């Protein structure tokens, strides 16, 4: 399979994760203290490196069939989570992930938290917040890079996609020194949700023993089908919401 869809999928997924991590780091560093924030970031990156070093080679030793079932299931579950959230946000059932308000929330919390020196870190709050933010978003990046790269036998391409995304977000973040509010996060999440769900379904079923009609070319049908289903879900929820709003005054009249 061409490496471009792999690189693009990993790139988009990692941009979303990197933007969320950047918001937390900026809010903590600007409001509290950069030194402890960088220490937290560094500790998270070391932890991620250890997890990658431990999990990466272990995955390589799994038989391909077992790997495809496990990774397929995880990717499909992961992808459906992203799709679910993106559809709920697109239809107004869940608030849009707004980096500006997320930033304000973090800043307010950071301003109110007490300062505490612990284990050689001058501001423990900044350290733990940066550590948790970078570790959590980073874990998703690592998971996507390892699973996509290993299944396509092209870890290099997945790493290129992830590195390009992280580099781009870091450079833009340093340049603007503000949360990246113009990134259309929800639509990117929808696209990534479609890709993760499609690849997960394809690999999972293959691992379970099926032979897809057309082999790898079946993905060219699975991806658009999942995208259409997501689109139909958005249409369905919009209609349902409109129906509830229209019927509400009528029921109030009946009730009164």
């Amino acid at each position, binding site marked *: 399979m061409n490496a471009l869809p792999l690189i693009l999928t990993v790139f988009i997924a990692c941009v979303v994760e990197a933007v969320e991590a950047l918001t937390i780091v900026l809010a903590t560093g600007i409001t509290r203290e950069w030194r402890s924030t960088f220490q937290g970031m560094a500790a998270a990156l070391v932890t991620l490196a250890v997890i990658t070093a431990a999990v990466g080679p272990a995955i390589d030793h799994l038989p391909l069939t077992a790997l495809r079932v496990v990774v397929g*299931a995880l990717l499909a*579950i992961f992808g*459906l*989570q992203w*799709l679910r959230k993106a559809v709920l946000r697109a239809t107004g059932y869940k608030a849009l992930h707004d980096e500006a308000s997320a930033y304000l929330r973090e800043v307010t919390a950071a301003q109110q938290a007490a300062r505490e020196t612990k284990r050689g870190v001058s501001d423990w709050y900044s350290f733990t917040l940066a550590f948790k933010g970078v570790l959590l978003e980073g874990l*998703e990046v690592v998971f996507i890079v390892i699973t996509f790269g290993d299944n396509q036998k092209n870890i290099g391409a997945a790493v290129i996609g992830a590195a390009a995304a992280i580099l781009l977000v870091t450079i833009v973040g340093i340049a603007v020194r503000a949360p990246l509010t113009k990134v259309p996060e929800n639509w990117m999440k929808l696209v990534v949700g479609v890709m993760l769900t499609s690849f997960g379904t394809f690999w999972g079923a293959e691992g*379970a023993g*099926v032979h897809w009609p057309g082999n790898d070319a079946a993905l060219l049908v699975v991806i658009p089908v999942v995208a259409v289903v997501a689109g139909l879900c958005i249409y369905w929820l919009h209609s349902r919401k409109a129906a509830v709003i229209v019927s509400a005054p009528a029921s109030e009249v009946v009730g009164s």
Partner: protein
Amino acid sequence: MKQLKAFGAFWYDFVIGDDWHVAALVVAGLALTAILTHAAKVNAWWLLPVFVVAALAWSLHRATAGRK
């Protein structure tokens, strides 16, 4: 014990997320696909996509039913 619970909660949230029904349906779909393929010798490539679509629709229905 508290840290172990927090560790478990972190991984549950990371892998399973907001609605465990989604994970359950995906796993059930995979298990049925494997059974049909290996035991009944049916090339059930269509089954997992059906479960995936059903999982998304069911989860969205549960999340939005009765809400404005």
